[in-house]
C-alpha cells in the first residue's frame, strides 16, 4: 500500500477499466491533480473514505430512499403493500383535519422549549463559571438529566405529575397553594406546559455546557478594559459578553431546534393517556398515523415523515439566513 503513495500519474490511465468509459475523464483529471499535490492517490483515499461513505449510503441515503418509496405506496393495515398510491398519501396528510392543531403544537413546543432553555442556560452557565465550593459536584449534577434515557426521565415525570399520588400535587396541597389536585397531564390547559417543563429540563445540560465553553473563550483583557472604562456589570454583559457569545448561542439554538423538534419520547410518554391529536407534534403525529390512529397507514406516515424532514430543513435554513444577514449588516 505504501508504495502506491509515491506512484506518478499513470500514462495510460484507466487501462483495463473499459467497462466504465463514461467515468474515465473525471478519474483522469482527479489523478493528475493528486499527482501534482503528490500526497496520496485518490483511489487510495477513496479506500480510506469507504467506511464513512458506506455509513452515509447505508444509514442516511438508503433509508431516505426507502422512506420516499414508502410514501408513494398504498399499504394495508397489516403493512402489506397493495400498490402505488402516487401522491395520495401526501394529499391525505395535508387534508388531515388535525394537521392545523399538530402544526400549532409543534411551533409552541419548539419555540417555548428552546427559548426557555436558552435563557435559563445563560443564567446557569454564568453561575457555573464562578468558582465556589462544590462547583465540580454541581457541574456533574447538571449532566445527569442528559445522561439518563429520555423515556426514563419522562416516566419519572409522569409519576411526579400524577393526579392521585404525584409528589408535585402532594406538595402543593400540603402548602395550601391549591385546594384540589391539578391534572397536569390530563387537563388540556396544563398538558403542553407540563411537557415543556420536561423538554427544558432535558435540554438544559447540553446548552449550559455549550455556554460554559463560550464564556470561557471570552478573553479577560476585554472585560478588564471595559471595567477600567467604567462600564456597569449590566453594560459589560449586554455589550461584551453576549456579542462574544454569539457563536455559542447560534450553535445551541440550531442544535436545540433540531433536537427538540425531533423529540419523540417526552411527548409520547407524557401524552399517552390523551386521545386524539390535541397535544401531538408532527413527530408523534407521524408515529400515530402509522400505528395508533384509525388511519393506521404506513404510507401516510412516510409522507408525513418527508414533510418533517423538509420542515426542519427549511426552519434551520431560515435561521441561518437570518444569522448571516445580521453578520452582513453589522459590518
Amino acid at each position, binding site marked *: 500500500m505504501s508504495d502506491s503513495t509515491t506512484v506518478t500519474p499513470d500514462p495510460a490511465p484507466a487501462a483495463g477499466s473499459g467497462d466504465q468509459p463514461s467515468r474515465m475523464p473525471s478519474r483522469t483529471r482527479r489523478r493528475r491533480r493528486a499527482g501534482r499535490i503528490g500526497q496520496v492517490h485518490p*483511489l487510495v483515499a477513496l479506500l480510506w473514505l469507504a467506511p464513512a461513505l458506506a455509513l452515509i449510503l447505508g444509514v442516511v441515503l438508503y433509508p431516505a430512499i426507502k422512506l420516499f418509496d414508502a410514501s408513494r405506496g398504498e399499504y394495508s393495515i397489516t*403493512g402489506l403493500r397493495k400498490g402505488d398510491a402516487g401522491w395520495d398519501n401526501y394529499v391525505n396528510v395535508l387534508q388531515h383535519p388535525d394537521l392545523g392543531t399538530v402544526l400549532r403544537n409543534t411551533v409552541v413546543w419548539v419555540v417555548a422549549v428552546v427559548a426557555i432553555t436558552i435563557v435559563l442556560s445563560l443564567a446557569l452557565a454564568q453561575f457555573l463559571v464562578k468558582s465556589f465550593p462544590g462547583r465540580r459536584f454541581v457541574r456533574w449534577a447538571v449532566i445527569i438529566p442528559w445522561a439518563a434515557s429520555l423515556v426514563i426521565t419522562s416516566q419519572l415525570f409522569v409519576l411526579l405529575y400524577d393526579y392521585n399520588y404525584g409528589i408535585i400535587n402532594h406538595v402543593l396541597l400540603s402548602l395550601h397553594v391549591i385546594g384540589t389536585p391539578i391534572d397536569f397531564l390530563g387537563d388540556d390547559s396544563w398538558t403542553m406546559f407540563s411537557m415543556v417543563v420536561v423538554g427544558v429540563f432535558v435540554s438544559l445540560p447540553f446548552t449550559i455546557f455549550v455556554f460554559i465553553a463560550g464564556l470561557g473563550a471570552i478573553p479577560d483583557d476585554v472585560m478588564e478594559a471595559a471595567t477600567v472604562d467604567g462600564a456597569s456589570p449590566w453594560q459589560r454583559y449586554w455589550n461584551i459578553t453576549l456579542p462574544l457569545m454569539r457563536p455559542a448561542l447560534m450553535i445551541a439554538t440550531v442544535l436545540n431546534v433540531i433536537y427538540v423538534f425531533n423529540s419523540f419520547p417526552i411527548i409520547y410518554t407524557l401524552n399517552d*393517556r390523551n386521545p386524539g391529536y390535541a397535544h401531538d407534534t408532527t413527530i408523534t403525529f407521524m408515529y400515530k398515523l402509522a400505528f395508533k390512529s384509525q388511519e393506521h397507514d404506513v404510507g401516510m406516515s412516510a409522507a408525513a415523515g418527508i414533510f418533517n424532514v423538509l420542515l426542519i430543513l427549511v426552519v434551520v435554513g431560515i435561521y441561518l439566513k437570518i444569522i448571516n444577514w445580521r453578520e452582513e449588516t453589522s459590518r
Partner: protein
Amino acid sequence: MRSTKKSVVVAGLAIAGLALGACGGGTGAGTAPGGTAGATGEEAKTIKLVAAEYSKDHTKAFWDAFAKTYNEKTGYTLEVQVVSWDNIDQQSSTMIQNNQAPDILNLNAYASYAKDGLLYDSDAVLPAVAKDDILDTFVKYGTYQGKFYGFPDLSSARAFFYNKTIFKQAGITAPPKTWAELEADAQKITALGGGKVGYALPLGPEEAQGEFSMWIFNNGGDWKTDGNWVINSDKNVQTLDFLKKLADEKVTQNNPARTNRADAFDLFKSGAAGMVVGFSPLAADLDKDKKVDYGVAPFPTMDGSESKTLGVTDYLMAFKKPGNEKAVKAFYNLYYTPDQVNTFIKAEGFLPVTESGVKYFSNEKALTVYLNTLPNAKLTPTDDPAWDKVKLAVQQNLGGAMNGSPKATLDGLQRTAESVG
C-alpha cells in the same frame, strides 16, 4: 497499479456489502433467517414465532421450553422472538412491509391479515383434533368468510371487582345488580371522602373499547348486529349517557376520558377505588399484594337481567410461506396438547380456549366465576377486518364524549365504521 485497482474493487464491494447489510438491519425487525425456505417445494426446517409478552416472568420461559420440546418431538427448529405489547403492532407491520413475516405471529387481531391473503386457514395447518377441541365461541369469532384463521392462544373474560372493605365502610351489603344500584353505591363510596373513588372508569386510549363493550353488552347493545354496524344505536347512546352522568356526578376517578386501564387498576390495587371491571391477571396481582380484600361478581346490568361478559382472545396465526406447512402444522399439533396450552395459560393467569382446558381448570375455585361465563361470552367483532380500524377509532375518540355529546361521538364512530367497511 494492479494492486491499487484490485483494492478499489474490494473497496467497492465492501461499500456495497455494508450498504446492503445496513438495509437489513435498519428495519428494526432484525434479519431473521427464519423463513429462508428457498424455492417453492423445498421444506422449511426452521420456523419463526413472534410472540407477545404477557408477562416478564413466564412468556419467554414458556416459549423457550416449548421450542425445546418442539425440536425434540418433531425435528424442526423453532426460533422464538418475544416482543412487548407496546411494540408488537409496529414490529409485525414492519416485518410484513419488508417481506420478512414470521411463520407464526401472536397478536390480538387477525382478520385484516386474513383479508390480505397472508394466512393459512385451519384446513391447511390446524390438526382436526385441535380444531374440535377449541371452544365454539372462539371458532366463531376466528372465522373470516367461512374459513377459520384466528386460532386462539388464550382468553380472558371480564368481571366486576369490588373492594369489600370499602363496601363495608359505606354500608353496602351486596354487590350491585343493576346500574341504578351501582350508581347509588358509587355515590356512597365517594361520600366517604379521603380520595375514595366510587367506580374506576377507564375510557382512555389503551382499552376504551373493552370498558365500553362491558357496558353496552349489559344494556342489550352491541357493536354489530346481523352484519350491520350499530354503534350509535339508542341503547349504546343511553349507555354512554349513563357513563357521562357518572363522570359528571364525580363518582368516578378524575378525568375518566384520559385514564388508561392500567391506571384504573392501580387505583383499585391501592385500595382507593371501590369498583372496577377487571380480569384474572388483576386478581393474580391482588392476591400477590394481599392488600385489598376484594370480591368478584357478575357485572350489573341496566335492568337487572342476566349479566353478560366480554370475552377477549388473542391469536396465533400462521403465515403462508413456501414449504412451511408441515412445520407449522407440527407447531399447532404440539401447542394444543393439554400439557402445553394449559401450562401456558395457567402460568400467565388467563383462561382456557379449549373444551379440555375448561375441564382442566374447573377445579380452580378462583376461576369459576369466569369459566361459567366463558362459553357464552360475547366478543368484539374481531372477525371483521374493519373492526381493526374501528377499534382504533374508538380508542382515540370515545373519551371525547365525557366533555361533549355522547350521541355525536357515537354518530362519528358509526360513520367511521361504515366508511371503512
